[in-house]
Each structure stands twice: as structure tokens, then as C-alpha cells.
């Protein structure tokens, strides 16, 4: 224990005494570590961002989307919404799907203070938010109890609230929807706009849409679909089974079941990432070579000191370890510096501009990148310290003291 602590203290002392030399030797290492860490972290962060975006748009792995469009052959017509609902419920029950949601897009005439506007509404069920990592920023998402409300619940975007006159969810704003048979809906939750100048839009429970959905609008937007969040390993099997069941239950329709979520993809192109990483590794090796060079010269100058330390009782193993530790401690300091700079730089990275849309869940600095940077720093320190340490061990004590 004291041997290790003593070696580290010795190494630190040596670095403290020769600050300028160490600083010069370590600039290259610190820059390379910073680059490696930053690239690793940026890749991780962007992959995380894109994965979350992917989940948000397409659902988590594995999300199956089930749709059944009338074929039009033999005079087939679109089944009634109730028929879809019944078939979808049977499928959810049959396969014990934990999270599922019917989905129906329908335009709705919304009476804003400045006039009626056609607003795009998405009919969902409460599970949909979990399946799509969807989070409201004020108010709440739907619960099962909302199905019994006389005034349908709405979760709207900021543009919708702005169109209502800049109200907040806390004020429990209401809005009239519909033409001949209007209903008064209540805003229960809100979320930010997906992009600047976004149009008002709203989520509503799919059952509540019946108040303003017309056969004409159904013809335009299509029948409801169903999303199922299933275990990835069962996804492929379920595609075939659900397709068969839906086609059997609804006549005159083309049943389609496909996996809706897409595999993760890296926003930073893999090849570019490899090139930058390669350049960083070369920079790190060059920095290490500089370190070796300076360390070798320094050992030559320190022969007498090494001899003196041997007279204190330093074994050859201890001398080897100490000289190597000097290099490792030095590059560790450089590593900490490099990683810190990378963290600061990436903390201020304009992710929104880079991704082209607002990133709601800004990912933190990935620990793995910091670990990669530190491992690279310590590794190059150990490599760079090896040769000088071997030279130091070969110093003849008697000659060293007389040097």
C-alpha cells in the first residue's frame, strides 16, 4: 500500500518540479484525448437523441402497426369503426399485449376566438404516450377515466394554446369542436411545438373523436389503425399471426401488419466517425511519442537522482514503477484536462441546430466516452513510460551516484 502511494507521490512530485517540461509534453496528449472523448461522446449523444426521436415518431422496439383498408373488390366498403374496435380489442386480449393503442387521424373544426380552424387531431388511447416516450410539459396525459368525460379531454400543442389566446393549461381552458353537433372539449395537457410556426394540433382519446368524425373525413384519413408494443423476439411471429386474424375477422379488407419502429441509426455517419477517431488515435500516438522522447532525455538527466533514490532503498521494481507512474500520472492529468474540455464543449453543443429540430430530452455526457478518453490517456501514459522505465532500471547505481 505505502509502496503504491509512495510511487504515485514520487511521480506527482517529479511532475510538480518539472512543470514546464511536463506541460509541453502533454499538450498533444490532452488535445488527442479531448478529440477522442468528444467524438465518442458526440456519437453517443446523437445516437441517443436519434433513438429517442425514433421512439417518439415510430414507437419503441418493437411496435407493430396493424391496419385494414378495404380492397374495394366486389363492392367492399370500409367496416364501421365499432367493428375495427372490436377486432382490435380481441387481438390485444388474445395475445396479452401489455401496451396497445388504437390510432385515428381526423381533422376537426375548432372554434378559436379568432374563428374556426381545421385542426389535425390524433385519436389515441392512454398507452400511446408510454409507447412513444411522449411527455406533456404542462397538465397531464390521458387516463382511462377520461373516456367517461362528457367534455372530451384534449392534449394540445403550444400553438393550440396560443390560438386560444395564450391561455395556460392551469386555467382549464375549454374549446368548442365540431360543426352541426359541437362538443365542448377541455384542455388537460400541453406539449411544445415540434417546430417553429407549427399549426395547432391536438391529441384526443380515439373514442371521443366520434363527436366530429364524419364518413367523409374517414374516407379521407382512412380507417383506425392499431399499434402493439410487443417483445422484440416475438415481433416477427406476431406479424403473421395478427395479419391472419385481422384478415379473417374483417371481410373485404387488406390487412397489413408491419413493424413500425426502425432500428437505431447513428446520426453521425459511421465512416466520418471512424475517420475522426482514426485521426485522434494517430494524434494520441504522436503525443505519446513526444512523451517518450522527452521522458527518455529526462531519464538521462536524472541518472544521479535515480542512484540517490536507490540509496534510499528503492528496488529496481520501485524505480521502474515510479518512472512509469510519472508518465501515467502525467497523461492522467492530461486526460482529465482533455475530458473536461470535451465535456464543456459538448455541453454547449447546439444539438437543436445540429439535429434540425428541438431536442426535448437533451442527453447527458455519456460516461462511456469519458471512460474511453481516460483509458486512452492512461494507456498512452503506460506505453510512453515503458521505455524510460526500462532505461532507468538499467542504470548502475554506483555510476549513477557518481554521475
Amino acid at each position: 500500500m505505502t509502496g503504491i502511494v509512495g510511487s504515485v507521490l514520487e511521480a506527482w512530485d517529479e511532475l510538480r518540479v518539472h512543470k514546464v517540461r511536463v506541460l509541453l509534453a502533454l499538450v498533444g496528449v490532452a488535445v488527442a484525448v479531448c478529440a477522442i472523448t468528444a467524438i465518442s461522446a458526440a456519437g453517443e449523444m446523437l445516437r441517443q437523441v436519434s433513438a429517442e426521436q425514433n421512439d417518439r415518431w415510430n414507437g419503441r422496439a418493437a411496435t407493430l402497426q396493424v391496419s385494414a383498408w378495404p380492397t374495394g373488390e366486389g363492392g367492399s366498403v370500409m367496416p364501421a369503426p365499432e367493428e375495427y374496435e372490436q377486432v382490435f380489442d380481441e387481438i390485444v386480449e388474445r395475445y396479452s399485449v401489455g401496451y396497445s393503442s388504437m390510432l385515428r387521424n381526423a381533422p376537426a373544426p375548432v372554434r378559436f376566438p379568432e374563428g374556426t380552424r381545421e385542426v389535425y387531431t390524433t385519436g389515441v388511447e392512454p398507452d400511446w404516450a408510454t409507447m412513444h416516450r411522449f411527455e406533456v410539459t404542462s397538465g397531464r396525459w390521458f387516463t382511462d377515466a377520461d373516456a367517461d368525460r362528457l367534455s372530451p379531454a384534449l392534449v394540445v400543442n403550444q400553438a393550440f394554446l396560443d390560438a386560444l389566446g395564450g391561455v395556460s393549461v392551469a386555467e382549464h381552458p375549454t374549446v368548442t369542436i365540431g360543426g352541426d353537433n359541437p362538443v365542448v372539449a377541455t384542455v388537460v395537457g400541453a406539449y411544445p411545438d415540434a417546430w417553429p410556426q407549427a399549426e395547432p394540433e391536438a391529441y384526443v382519446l380515439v373514442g371521443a373523436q366520434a363527436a366530429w368524425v364524419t364518413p367523409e373525413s374517414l374516407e379521407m384519413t382512412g380507417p383506425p389503425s392499431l399499434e402493439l408494443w410487443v417483445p422484440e423476439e416475438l415481433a416477427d411471429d406476431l406479424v403473421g399471426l395478427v395479419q391472419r386474424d385481422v384478415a379473417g375477422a374483417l371481410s373485404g379488407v387488406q390487412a397489413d401488419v408491419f413493424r413500425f419502429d426502425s432500428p437505431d441509426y447513428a446520426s453521425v455517419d459511421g465512416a466520418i466517425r471512424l475517420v475522426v477517431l482514426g485521426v485522434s488515435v494517430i494524434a494520441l500516438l504522436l503525443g505519446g511519442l513526444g512523451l517518450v522522447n522527452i521522458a527518455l532525455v529526462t531519464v538521462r538527466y536524472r541518472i544521479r537522482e535515480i542512484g540517490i533514490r536507490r540509496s534510499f532503498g528503492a528496488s529496481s521494481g520501485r524505480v521502474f514503477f515510479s518512472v512509469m507512474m510519472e508518465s501515467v500520472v502525467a497523461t492522467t492529468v492530461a486526460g482529465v484536462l482533455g475530458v473536461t474540455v470535451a465535456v464543456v464543449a459538448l455541453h454547449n453543443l447546439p444539438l437543436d441546430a445540429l439535429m434540425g429540430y428541438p431536442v426535448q430530452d437533451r442527453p447527458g455526457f455519456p460516461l462511456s466516452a469519458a471512460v474511453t478518453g481516460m483509458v486512452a490517456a492512461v494507456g498512452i501514459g503506460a506505453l510512453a513510460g515503458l521505455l524510460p522505465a526500462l532505461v532507468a532500471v538499467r542504470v548502475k547505481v554506483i555510476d549513477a551516484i557518481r554521475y
Partner: protein
Amino acid sequence: MSLLELSGVTRSVVLPDDRTLEILRGIDLTVDAGEHVSIVGRSGTGKSTLLNILGLLDAPTSGEYVLDGVPIGRLSGRARARRRGTDFGFVFQQFNLLQGRTALENVVAPLLYARGRQFWQRRTLAAEMLERVGLGDRLDTRPEKLSGGEQQRVAIARALVRVPRVILADEPTGALDVDTGSEVMDLLDTIARENGSALIAITHDLAVASRAARQFRLAEGVLTPIAISARSAGSLGALGAPGGQPSGPGADPGAAGHPAESGDDQAEHVARPLVPAHGAAPGEGDAA
């Protein structure tokens, strides 16, 4: 039982032309705990080689070295290093302080190789030791800002901070003027006595040698007991080598006073033996 005992120790090296150079020949020496021994001899006689063997920095070619009852030849390199750290303190002619470090950091340095209390309380112990050598007010001063005498005091503090059983002093006053040298030797004597450490000093200076309870002369690789009284202490020349010139074959007149004489290129510069004590055989005719 003696603290250390050399029996028939030799040290020889093979020169580039394949000749064998004998630096030490059949050295017999015993030193007891707390004893003060001095070894005089001209440059190139093997004094430093002997000191390096005593301090476990070098190994004999033949013969036996027993330290505290343990034959050194049986110890591994690591064990020898450990005993070197715990049992020996070195004082060098050129001080050999670590540059760029303060006096305190220099004295702390050996304690980095210690264990237990000595390691964890190294700064306190080092400060106390510097206080004992009269440098309590110069803890944070770097060697280059200290006088020669002060630097040697720091070196003494560093040699003694681990309370070694043997202090090996290689020309401890060689780089100091007479008065400062005398003060330094007073200090070394005092602290060695207080610590109960044996003190083995090699020197050209007969005044320094005369402080020891037992004196030896090393000439042509042979160690001979001699007696130097304070009255007769002077130069080596006064003890039988006129002008202080080495008289051995290939002697280097310019090497007198140089501390390093055990190297391959200098070992043949052996001097004739000086004053043997009580009729000891080698070089008897040279007695003053």
C-alpha cells in the same frame, strides 16, 4: 554479535582488454552497533567500492558479508534494497541533494520508501530532523539557496531521518572548508551517537579520521588498521607519502581529493599503504 562483518571480501572487475582488475583484496572488517570507524586512503584505492559494498549498493566478487547475522549474499535484490533503506544512511561528499526540491522535501524523500508511521508522518519526521540539524527555519529553502555547510546538514538529516543502524559517509567534509567541515562532523558524531547508529566514514582528511574510535587505511585494495592521534592528524602525506602523491603504479597525481575512485578506469591508481597500526604487515615501512 557484530552489526556487520566482512570476511575475505574481494571485488574485481574485468576490463575491456579482458584483464582482471582487483579493487579490493581480502577485506576483513567488523563493526559493532554505535561504533565510529574511519577509513583513509588515497584516491583510487577502493574506498568508495568498499563503502558501496557495505551499503549494499554493490556486491563482493567473493568473500562473505554478514549484516546483523544475515549473510547478504542470500538476500534477493528486493530484500537488499529494503535493508539498504532501513539499515543504512548515506552522506555523500557532493551532498547529492535532489534539485528543485526544498530542504524538507529532500529529507522527506527517503521516507517515501518507508512503511507505517515513518511513511504516513513523513513531513513531521523530516521537519523534526531538520530542526535537530539546526535548519528548522530553512524547511522551504531549496538547496541552491543554501551554503555548502547547510546543504551537508540537509544531507545528514536525510541520511538519518529513517534512524539507520549504519551511517556511511563518503568524504563528508570533502566539499567544505575546515571550520564548516569540523562543525558538520561534530553534528554527524552527535546525532549518530544519539541515535545509536554506527558511523563509517571514508576520508582523505586525517583530522576527520582521527575522530573515530577505530581507524583503517585502505591501500592497494588491502584494509589495514592504523592509529591516528589528533596530534598527528594532518594530510595523508604527513603519514608517509611525501607531497601526498600516490606512489602506486599508474598513479594519478591529479586524483588526490577526488571522491570517486572505484571505477574501472581508476582502480589501478592504487596508493601505497599508509600508517599501519601495531606492526600490521602491508606498507609497514611507510609509517610516519
